[in-house]
């Protein structure tokens, strides 16, 4: 059986796979990182989004073997060792940007990539277009968009801390 070596959230793992094994199957079933979800399995919903060498990708549409030698970050890799949440996770909590939470890991991973690719900041329109690949059946998106805008301000140094959602 082929072997793949991946650095997941900073730790190197070597696992046996079939050629057809998907990256998301390795993450969930071999490494037990079940924060990455499978919603549609048809490349549309974005519940499975992780970062591959810094870019957001759909882990249900990549073979594990294609990811050989890459650095993967999943939702489990965002919080600090002491449990402090990433500003994007904190903003999703503060802005009530989730209801059932199924889409949330993928939303957060897509949102972080979106903010990182727009160092000068993002308009509301750009945030909405940037979420094209993530489907949420609960929230209606408005609070997700607000959370991402607030987190972008913190991540890019325009705000020292998260603006309160109540303001």
């Amino acid at each position, binding site marked *: 059986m*082929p072997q793949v070596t991946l650095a997941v959230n900073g730790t190197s793992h070597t696992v046996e796979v*079939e*050629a*057809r094994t998907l990256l998301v199957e390795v993450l969930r079933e071999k490494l037990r990182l079940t924060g990455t979800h499978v919603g549609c*399995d*048809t*490349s549309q919903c*974005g519940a499975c*989004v992780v970062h591959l060498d810094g*870019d*957001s*990708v*759909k882990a249900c*549409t*990549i*073979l594990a*073997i*294609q990811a050989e030698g890459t650095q993967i970050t999943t939702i489990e890799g965002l919080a600090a060792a002491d449990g402090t949440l990433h500003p994007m996770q904190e903003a999703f909590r503060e802005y009530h940007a989730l209801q059932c939470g199924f889409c949330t890991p993928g939303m957060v991973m*897509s949102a972080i*990539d*979106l903010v990182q690719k727009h160092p000068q900041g993002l308009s509301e329109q750009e945030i909405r277009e*940037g979420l*094209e*690949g*993530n489907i949420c059946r609960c929230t209606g998106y408005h609070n997700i968009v607000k959370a991402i805008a607030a987190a972008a301000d913190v991540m890019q140094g325009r705000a020292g801390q998260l603006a309160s959602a109540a303001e």
Partner: protein
Amino acid sequence: MYDFTYHKPASVADAVAILAADPDAKPISGGMTLLPALKHRLNRPSALVDLSGIAELRGIRQDGGALVIGAMVKHYEVATDSQVMAAIPALARMASTIGDTQVRNRGTIGGSLANNDPAADYPAAALALRATLITDRRRISADDFFLGMFTTALEPDELLVAVSFPVPQKAGYAKLRNPASRYAMAGVFVAQGPQGVGVGVNGAGPCAFRQAEMEAALSAAWSVESVAAVKQSPDELNSDIHGSAEYRANLVTVMAKRAVADAG
């Protein structure tokens, strides 16, 4: 998905040798079309030949009056590359509307052209800009490349290596996205280039095509009014739950007007 053997060659020659030795082997570039198809068990390749390790397929360069884009260049790179934005900004804008961020981070121009989905965006641009498709063994004009739905002039063991786009004076693109699939119901790419005016239509028919009457009208006078006067025939256009052939025919004129406005 059925299992298969996986190869990751480091050169075009090695990839072609594997494909030539095994007629059931298939190349994989971004995998954004092929992997969903394999999950549905729509076909059963014996082997996948991953092109991502081949340096010859990467990179964007200027060559005389043309912009040459390697087959493995991702949609995201085309959308954000400074050379593309300077030489053919409409192509960069078009690439920025393909699928979503995650599709653009993996999907490639070569995969899209080789796949020739009727609703894909790149085939219309290649036709309108009079692109040349460069393979491991020959150069094929866009007019001779797109043969029909999901069908191109490529041999089973032939690899697309790069696409050469003559740099136009101006170009523009507009499409109407299906609200659910987000693929083009109809898209029109217009260009005024060194080989004349080109109008490429995608989404509307079973295969992207050039709209000769619109090309003639724009050659006579480059204006929104010129294309507004041309009616696309619904004969042989797609008709499905998303829209009738007549609806799509009307959309072609509407999108052509918007594309000319986009080109400026």
